[in-house]
């Protein structure tokens, strides 16, 4: 039963990782921007949700507020930070540092207004009940499952049906050429940031109600997203999501064999191994070379 319990925990963590990682992967895949401030998007969304709830808003309204804030931040970064840098042929790392700086600033800002402690709200949703002897599952698990499946179906449908997915892939390869085709690289990149940032929202909300959120969480979210993006295969949103799920599972399941303090490191051992032995990732196409 321990294994089952661990697997359930792993799936729940993994689902949230999956969505957030998919958002990062989408942005990175399309724009080649290492958007490490994605972690800031995540905490912003979480705090926005919390604040709205505390002001007495309905959870649906609060979610909408979180969505708006996240998308606005993503667009802000795209238009006011990344675009000017890319105009000057800024290198990969220039963007990385800028994004990192923005993440720090955002974290400080949140801390300034909401304090550095962790914030959460207690809902009956997160109280686990004993489903089978020794197997505890909280209702939020089913909520998360439903949300994740729904969001994935929606995003996949959107990317496949509207050619936007194709446009985003083309964008990732050569934005200049995209313009020669008469398409707007700016608009596509904005789209990537809108979708990617929106994908961080469900994870942020669910994390806020289950484990709680704190300003320093951004770093962890960013790490997991980045790892999942690479393990999944750069350019593959589905791969990133799958890898996010796997990372969540590994993190929880290894606890059955090693001491608990190693559980985070396990994910990164896996990341390192993947890069050495399967550099294209779970679903990657383009070679590492």
């Amino acid at each position, binding site marked *: 039963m321990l294994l089952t319990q661990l697997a359930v925990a792993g799936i729940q963590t993994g689902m949230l990782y999956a969505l957030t990682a998919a958002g990062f992967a989408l942005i*990175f895949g399309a724009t080649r921007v*290492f958007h490490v401030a994605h972690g800031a998007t995540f905490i912003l969304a979480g705090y926005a949700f919390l604040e709205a709830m505390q002001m007495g808003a309905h959870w649906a309204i609060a979610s909408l507020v979180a969505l708006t804030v996240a998308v606005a931040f993503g667009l802000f970064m795209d238009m006011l*930070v990344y675009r*000017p*840098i890319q*105009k*000057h*042929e*800024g*290198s*990969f*790392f*220039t*963007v*990385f*540092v*800028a*994004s*990192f*700086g*923005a*993440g*720090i*600033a*955002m*974290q*400080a*800002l949140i*801390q*300034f207004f909401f304090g*550095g402690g962790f914030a959460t709200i207690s809902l009956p949703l997160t109280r686990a009940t004993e489903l089978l002897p020794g197997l505890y599952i909280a209702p939020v698990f089913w909520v998360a499952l439903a949300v994740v499946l729904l969001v994935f179906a929606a995003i996949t449908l959107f990317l496949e049906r509207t050619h936007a997915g194709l446009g985003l892939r083309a964008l990732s390869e050569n934005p200049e050429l995209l313009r020669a085709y008469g398409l707007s690289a700016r608009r596509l990149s904005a789209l990537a940031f809108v979708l990617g940032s929106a994908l961080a929202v469900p994870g942020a909300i669910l994390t806020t109600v289950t484990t709680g959120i704190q300003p320093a969480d951004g*770093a962890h979210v960013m*790490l997991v997203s*980045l*790892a999942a*993006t*690479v393990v999944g295969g*750069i350019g593959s949103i589905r791969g990133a999501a799958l890898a996010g799920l796997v990372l969540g599972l590994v993190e929880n399941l290894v606890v059955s064999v090693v001491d608990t*303090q*190693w559980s*985070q*490191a396990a*994910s*990164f*051992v896996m*990341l*390192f191994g993947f*890069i*050495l032995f399967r*550099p294209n990732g779970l679903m990657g196409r383009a070679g*590492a*070379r």
Partner: protein
Amino acid sequence: MIAYLVNLATLIAIFGIAATSLNLLIGYAGIFSIAHAMFFGIGAYVAAQVALTFSADFLVAALAAAVAAAALSLCLALPALRVRGEYFVAASLGLQMMASTLFAEAHGFTGGVGGLVGIPPARILGFDVASPDAFLVLALACLALTLLAVRTLMRGSFGRSLMALRDSESAAEAFGKDVRALKTLAVVIGCFFVGIAGALFAFHMAFVNVESFTLEQSVVLMAMVIIGGAGTLTGPLVGVIALLSLPAALSFLPFIPSTQIGTVQQFIYGALMTLLMIFRPSGLVGLSRG
């Protein structure tokens, strides 16, 4: 005040060495490592252990630190030979995270989260160099040595070969450059010097623990290189001075309420990082392109 400035200058020298050595990887060889704090840490722990158990002579400890860091850097060379670009960034990230956990868990060697305390004052050939001024001179000497070595290497054929393979690996190969050997050598040399920086750090702080060698430290080192100007000799040093003296300067600002001082500092620090990159994308020293 003088003592404070001496301390700051010593830290600048130490991080100057670390950033210069990272620049060898990022700026010249195109090896985008964000695991540099790991080797900084290895240097610091090895030097601390040598000082605690064997000899407080800086030369012995620093040599051991540098050699250990260089030897273990083969962990980094392995992915560098196999993958490039973002994949390598992720690989080094994985390595860094594993190292952080190991540093925190290997109580016997690293003292765990509690760290190693009571590192004896540094000596060189029997002379005491522990006074802040003497130690600053030592750190500056190491920095000068590192700068000189990197300058000589990068202006010479080794540097040209590295830059050639950074710009086009297949073309470099087509002109007889052994890519494997070059990359491995670049990694080993870079980590050798950061090992020395680690040793200086251990003696300077008289205390080391894992928190100084985390991913964040790696990213800050990288930020120093990029903000100063990757691929330039003085850039990393300028970046170090900027990033280390900024918080110091901010703490002198009179108008920040003391209860929020940290948060406000963090905000200004982060925002300046971003603004610098927007307005000086090639770094403070770097050539402006386009």
